[in-house]
């Protein structure tokens, strides 16, 4: 299984900053967040950078897969 960036419980905008940093050095990044606002920010940012984005929700947590 691929490494997953665990960004649960972090205040805005730390999940976005960590995701942005990770995307600068990788083709594919998977992150887990538990705030709807963090999920929305990450997806919006990734789409603006022309990444493909998919996410699944389970028990209030969002696993977001971002790929070129």
């Amino acid at each position, binding site marked *: 299984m691929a490494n997953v960036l*665990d960004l649960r*419980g*972090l205040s805005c905008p730390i999940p976005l900053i*960590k995701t942005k940093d990770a995307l600068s050095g990788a083709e594919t990044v998977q992150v887990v967040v538990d705030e709807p606002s963090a999920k929305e920010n990450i997806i919006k940012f990734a789409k*603006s950078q022309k990444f493909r984005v998919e996410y699944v929700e389970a028990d209030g947590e969002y696993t977001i897969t971002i790929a070129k």
Partner: protein
Amino acid sequence: MNWLIIATGLVFGLGAVLLVKFGNPGNYGFCAACQLRDIAGALGIHSVPNLQYARPEIIGFILGSFGLARFSGEFRPRGGSNPALRFVLGMAMMIGALVFLGCPLRGILRVAGGDLNGLTGLAGFIAGIGAGVVFLKRGFNLGRAHTYTGSVQSTGYLAAAAALVLLVAVGMGAGILNVSTKPPGSLHAPIIISLIAGLAAGALAGRTRMCLSGGFRDFMLVGDTGLLKIYGIMFLAALAGNLYFGFFKLGFANQPLSHTMHLWNFLGLFLTGLAATLAGGCPLRQLIMAGEGNTDAMFCVLGMLAGAGVAHNLNAAGSAAGVGINGQIAVVAGIVIVGVLGLVCREKLVPVSKGV
């Protein structure tokens, strides 16, 4: 542009002007700092007699965001990310805002009423956010929060319960809470109108994640202007409303609940912007998140109430006459303290794990 962004801007902008029309003080339709300060006065946390009224707009913010979060399934009691420091950041946010005489939301509403001192304050706010973003990029964080489970979940309801108690108390009139008989505390729209405006604004702010520090921060970090658009529409709506009702008066001097000490307007909101960026949201956003069950935001709001107490009991708040030496010392001390927190609070995270 998304209709929610437009609706939120209109409700805040036109709502603020209509609240003034119905009785609130000038450029005082909504303010997440001053109106919370009036609640602090109503509760006896400070003793300035003309700043005491449990403003239903704030009660509405909390109950509106709570109601929407419950309805949409986003109500999620959570917390545990360094509440003590969030309390301190809340105090700093309020002390800075009370030197400027308004939260950043009121800063924009003041400009929409022609008060150019709002521009000086907002420039300081943006600079403070810039400083906060530097700390965030260096790795600042207050640690992880976690979602509460089981019976502990009831703590998520505390802010909404407190707002409900306040609403009942203010609805019963004098007798329980302190109530000012002199302005600006005595000036207010009818309770039901203030409450409805606050409920609508709170629900929309919760849905759109409206936050001014977040708006500038996201623009600086990734060029995202989504949150700033809400404030742009709010400004235009309030400007139109102020022109229509004849409230607009352009200039620096003799503006309602305002002073012209530019340096302290700038530094006051600089402190608020810096503290808000480190706390993850502006004063309005903290109220909204508190309603949504975030106990860390509740601590920040408690800090804001305490900050109002400190500012007024120690004569450190601004007034129409300006900012006294105590206020100047409080702002500088606040910037130093929050700056040191920004430097040292870098809890080591282990963000990468396998198969979470």
